[in-house]
């Protein structure tokens, strides 16, 4: 029976914008994530340090409270690039833990259930799917990284006044850019692990292992070859070197910020390639 009669109507209703559609997946993931007690607990723990930093800012801006302290200590507790570097280093570790907890649940279950076909049977491309998963991590990690960083910066500006802002406004850019690099790196590690290993616990361990193993490898290279460039292979060290430049803090001995930034970009690119290889709707087993 050949049918040449058209008895149906194509959908003529309003279609939401591309961004509204793109945010459907992150929205559902966030909703699901914040139902997990462990995630909420780690988030709460992750904001303790920013709260302490806020207290520190309050203290430094109230001269009367500092009167009784020694002069050396008074000059030490200053809100500057170093202060934000310490803040960023601490939050960076929480970001690793949080991504190790959240990341594995983002892609691994979809791969295990062959659900990618289901996603890609919608007006959703592979890059959009990967970006939506990245957005989940980026959103959550932002809450413990650059968002509190900017709040602290704003708090300091509010308390110290406009002279402080004029003298240190580049710090805000450094905080955002520095954390953006770190959050992107950590998220990509978590997504690649999740895409590579379908068992969530192993994928989480892989995220932690990535940072610790590379740190060990870097130390080993430096020790064996009596060099310092091995530090660049340690993502935490490399990020720290970049942050120091962004926050105008004196650099530490080792590869420069540009070299470290290049290595970090290389790692992110490699992780993107892993995702490109693994995020396929049809898996070919050879």
């Amino acid at each position: 029976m050949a049918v040449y009669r058209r008895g149906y109507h194509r959908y003529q209703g309003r279609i939401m914008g591309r961004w509204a559609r793109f945010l459907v997946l992150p929205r559902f993931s966030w909703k699901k994530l914040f139902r997990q007690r462990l995630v909420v607990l780690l988030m709460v723990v992750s904001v303790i340090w920013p709260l302490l930093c806020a207290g520190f800012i309050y203290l430094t801006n109230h001269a009367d409270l500092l009167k009784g302290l020694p002069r050396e200590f008074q000059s030490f507790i200053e809100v500057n690039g170093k202060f934000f570097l310490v803040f960023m280093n601490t939050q960076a570790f929480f970001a690793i833990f949080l991504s190790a907890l959240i990341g594995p649940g983002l892609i691994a279950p979809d791969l295990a259930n062959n659900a990618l076909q289901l996603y890609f049977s919608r007006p959703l491309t592979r890059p959009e799917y990967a970006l939506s998963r990245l957005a989940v991590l980026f959103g959550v990690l932002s809450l413990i990284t650059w968002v509190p960083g900017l709040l602290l910066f704003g708090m300091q500006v509010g308390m110290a006044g406009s002279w402080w802002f004029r003298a240190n406004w580049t710090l805000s850019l450094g905080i955002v850019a520095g954390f953006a690099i770190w959050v992107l790196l950590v998220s990509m590690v978590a997504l690649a692990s999740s895409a590579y290993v379908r068992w969530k616990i192993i994928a989480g361990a892989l995220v932690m292992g990535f940072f610790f193993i590379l740190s060990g490898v870097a130390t080993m290279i430096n020790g064996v070859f009596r060099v310092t460039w091995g530090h660049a292979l340690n993502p935490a060290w490399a990020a720290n070197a970049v942050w120091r430049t962004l926050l105008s803090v004196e650099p530490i001995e080792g590869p420069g910020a540009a070299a470290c930034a290049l290595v970090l970009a290389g790692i992110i690119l490699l992780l993107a390639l892993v995702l490109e290889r693994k995020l396929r709707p049809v898996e070919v087993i050879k």
Partner: protein
Amino acid sequence: MTAPAVVFDEVSKFYGEVLGVNRVTLNIPPGITSLVGPNGSGKTTLMNLMTGLIHPDHGSIRMRGISPRDPENLMRITGYATQYDAAPRWATGFSFITTGLLLFGCGRAEAEEKAWKALERLGLTDAAHRKVAAYSKGMRQRVRLAQAIAHEPELLVLDEPLNGLDPLVRAETIALFRSWAAQGRHVILSSHVLQEVDVISDQVVLIANGMIVAEGEIRNVRDEIHEHPSQFIVRCSDASNLAASLFSEDHITEIKVNDDRLSLLVMTRDRERFARALGRFAGDGHRIDSVIPADENVDALYEYLIGGDK
């Protein structure tokens, strides 16, 4: 008026060195089309190519005029139910389908309305707010179908859609397919249940080892198979007598008379001459009650063209 078709032009797909499909040329008109072939023959590869989940190494595909490389437009008119039970178990049937519709770009209220409609069509209204994890196999199959039809696509691609359905739901689902096909939509499905394919299909595509063995309406395909004589079951009042008469015809290759002597299975190399001969015998006084083609079905085509191993 030319109906929009699903067109494959010399399409080949290789998975490394493994052949997926090879030089496939198809022109599928609207209606129900079944892809039939043994396991690993390339049915799912064809479906994945249709939906743009994989792209051909050679050749081109147009799905009702849209390239599968344009998912933004193709997926608006396409519904795909894969063979996998991929619905997230933590989601309810309703939230699963609603989320899918939100991804299509429907507003929240409209998505919910369409989700209810789809669930109702598949008889899942009562279970809409239960988690997919609590669904039976048949219900999960139905929710898979519901997500494929929820956005009212004009091109439905369904991988083994009738598996796991109980007879009642199966009949209702087939009726749904029919109504969709009758509206000028494409319903392309794969199935191993050949009797079912036979009943529901407007046309079949037989595929083996990644190559198209036959394509078209079942009867036309059967007509093209000359090496196998056509088989007919003839019910009559005196089978032995009719068999004796038929044996005088040179196109008759074999006749089997049933034990009840009221029917016989006739094999002929020329359907036209067989029909004329029967008319003649009827005129001569043989009482012929019915003539039914015995191998104008997918089962027979499968056996002739692909082999007995289904």
